[in-house]
């Protein structure tokens, strides 16, 4: 599934999950806060509620959200840490792989690549 994300569009439910993750990361939702329901999400994005539910259950499976029966979905205490780890070890790693692959295609040497990253970093720092 996730392999597909390189070029084509990401499945909507993954996008929904990622958006909620971002909302948690930037402090919009804190631990034990209630997040949007599948119906609220369905309305916000004009998508089928079942798709929205799939996005939420993805986050439940990853222990980012927990379910309270009849009350809704809430943010777990470890949510931020889990998201951070996931993005670092998975999303970011893939991004790096992508860069390395493209560098190979363009015959960019390792030293050159490192130099480019360094300069990008210092630009960012300014």
């Amino acid at each position, binding site marked *: 599934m996730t392999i597909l994300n390189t*070029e084509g569009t990401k499945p909507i439910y993954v996008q929904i999950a990622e958006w909620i993750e971002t909302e948690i990361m930037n402090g919009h939702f804190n631990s034990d806060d209630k997040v949007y329901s599948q119906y609220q999400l369905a309305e916000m994005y004009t998508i089928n509620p079942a798709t929205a539910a799939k996005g939420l259950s993805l986050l439940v499976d990853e222990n980012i959200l927990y379910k309270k029966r009849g009350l809704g979905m809430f943010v777990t205490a470890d949510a931020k840490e889990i998201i951070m780890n996931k993005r670092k070890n998975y999303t970011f790693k893939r991004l790096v792989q992508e860069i390395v*692959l493209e560098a190979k295609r363009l015959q960019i040497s390792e030293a050159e690549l490192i130099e480019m990253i360094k300069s990008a970093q210092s630009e960012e720092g300014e």
Partner: protein
Amino acid sequence: MKVIECTDLAKSYFGKKVLNNLSFSIEENKITGLIGRNGVGKTTLLKIIAGFIKETSGEIKVFSERPFNSLNVSANSIFVDDQMSFPPALQLYELLEAASSFYPNWDMELAKRLFDYFSFDPKGYHNRLSKGKTSTFNAIVGLASHSPITIFDEPTTGMDASVRKDFYRALLKDYIAHPRTIIISSHHVDEIENLLEDVLLLKDGRNHLHLPMEELKAWAIGLKGPTEKIQEWVNDKEIVYENKIGTNTSYVVVRNDFADSALQSARLAGLEITAVSPSDLCVYITNQTKGGIDDVFKER
């Protein structure tokens, strides 16, 4: 709960088979998209479900009974298309009022609001409406009926892009507030894909695929790269579509039964791997002929 069930359903017109051994079931309160090429039998199927026409053979059950001549099915379903006929003597607003006596769940408030939003003239007449306005009015009736089975057969015929967008949103909002079984047939897969929970794809008069939309999105993948390299990767796969770009680049769509690790190594080998949009995939799958429009123009 299954609200629609059919087994070996067939329908012939003048000896020509339109539907052929169709077997599927539809769960209550889902939005299902009915997809297929022109003339594949979508409308026929929908009309059989609504009880408008009789099946030739096989079994069809709607709310556990045969829909043809069933009052129960008629009272609990609505079939919306651009051919809906209304009494020509009644004005548009009177039509809405009349509809309220036909449909027990009729939502007059919603009907009125939509009617005003799309700026219909209460004193207008249905047979004087433009194509797009006809579809819009019929869609309003379909939404406001709140029928337990709501069937839209090409509901957006003639609607402009903005009205189509409004209609989809209205449909979704009303569905969230009043969940019910909805079937939409459409050629605009890209426009409705996010609304759908399930997809029923017809080909050659039968159900070729019936699966959740999210699964359809992952059902196939596209591989692009040098032709000979592509061949290595797809030779034991089910090829859905193949296209040569230039002399030695190929784009091939195959059934996605690759392991993640296999895809990863294909990517590292320099192949471009892409998701295939449901809309494109439906076109590829339902193509009746091998080849494409280009073959028509080949040297004779």
